[in-house]
């Protein structure tokens, strides 16, 4: 075999490997990106599930004990904010606030109306709520992990070259403060 033929074969092999690498790399970025979306939709599902539980919570609490409307106001408001949120960052912020609002509400109710602790419906609902809160934590954790995986791929050598070429830039994730909300102000527990 002539030396020039050898060189051409070498070049062809390198070219084929490079093409495979580019295709594989591009597809990896696409699936990492898709993964982020699917992880986010799970977060949204769980927030939605939580939002759906709020009317039950309010109705059970207000049918069992006499509560002032401003007692339930903040938790209902948190739900409305969640429903009104449009962007991902807004949704997550509103979701976290709703999450914290429910926690604060449940604590406040437990303190102000100890008799509710014996109400089976109420206990069942709080179990569902805390289960959902935990699911949200899990789903958000998975979502953040998926973004980290994507960002790592865009920064790591040599995949960062491909990321630049195809325009896959790093993504920011919104980190809402989980303990940002304050306890809702308690009424006297007597309806006006």
């Amino acid at each position, binding site marked *: *075999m002539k030396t020039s033929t050898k060189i051409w*074969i070498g070049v062809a*092999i390198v070219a084929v*490997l490079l093409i495979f*690498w580019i295709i*594989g*790399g591009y597809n*990896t970025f696409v*699936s*990492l990106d898709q*993964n982020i979306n699917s992880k986010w939709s799970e977060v949204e599902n769980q927030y939605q599930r939580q939002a759906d539980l709020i009317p039950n919570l309010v109705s059970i609490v207000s049918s069992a004990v006499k509560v002032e409307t401003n007692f339930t106001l903040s938790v209902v408001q948190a739900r409305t904010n969640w429903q009104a949120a449009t962007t991902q960052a807004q949704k997550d912020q509103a979701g976290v606030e709703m999450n914290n609002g429910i926690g604060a509400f449940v604590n406040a109710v437990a303190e102000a109306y100890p008799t509710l602790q014996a109400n*089976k419906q109420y*206990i*069942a*609902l*709080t*179990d*569902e709520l*805390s*289960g*959902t809160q*935990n*699911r*949200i*934590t*899990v*789903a958000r954790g998975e979502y953040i*992990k998926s973004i980290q*995986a994507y960002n*790592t*791929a865009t920064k*790591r*050598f*040599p*995949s960062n070259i491909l990321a630049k070429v195809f325009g896959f830039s790093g993504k920011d994730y919104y980190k809402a403060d989980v303990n940002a909300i304050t306890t809702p102000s308690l009424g006297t527990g007597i309806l006006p």
Partner: protein
Amino acid sequence: MVYKKRAIFICFFSILTFLVLNFSILYASDYPTPTNKYVNDFAGIFSQPQTAYLQALLAEVEQNSTAEIVVATINDCTQDYVGYAYNLATNWKIGKADKNNGFLILYCVTQKKLVAQTGYGLEGLLPDSKIGRFMDEFYVPLRDKNQTAQGIIDFSTQIAKVINDNKEEVISGQAAKPQTDFFTVVIIIFVIYMLIARILGSIYKNKKRRDWPWFIPIFLPFPSSGTNSSSGFGSGGFSFGGGGFGGGGASR
């Protein structure tokens, strides 16, 4: 020539070792390695007959329904005991991979908490409120009488009963998630190596330097997209089916 061959050999295996290590790091963990498929009493709160009873009960459940219920006791689950329970359940991969029908019952001694974690596939059968109710009915009264171990057993029996009573539903399970096995990945990498070496080797058949193509560097520049790609590889001692958890459950 001998030196060259040795160099090639070392080069090839160091690349392979690197890849293997790269994967293994994903499975390192701070959680204890399970020693038994059904009862992992790390805190030592069960008596011999109690352990034997639980093992028989949970083995029967798995035989009947394929669901994997695990009872574990841990001395210190940290303050976030629910998070700990979730991490333990996902770490051990309790439940069948295609059905996600694992169920973890964890007692944290320091925190004095009983936590249950439900695999995805059992969430319909055992919603959080039901688990909480079972805890209130079967565990809490005994716990308050200082019979925690018996309370956990009674609660576990109740969960086992629900799964046994609905075994058809559990067996039919959820849709299987596609999973890449760790060994498949290694084998594929190995096969690609062999193929390329073979092809290049045959091209240069007439030449004496038949072995140089081993040097072609194939590297994995992209992180593997599935972190849960292996079922029961890294945990070392004992492995479960590879089931997933979403964080559902209850605690008392």
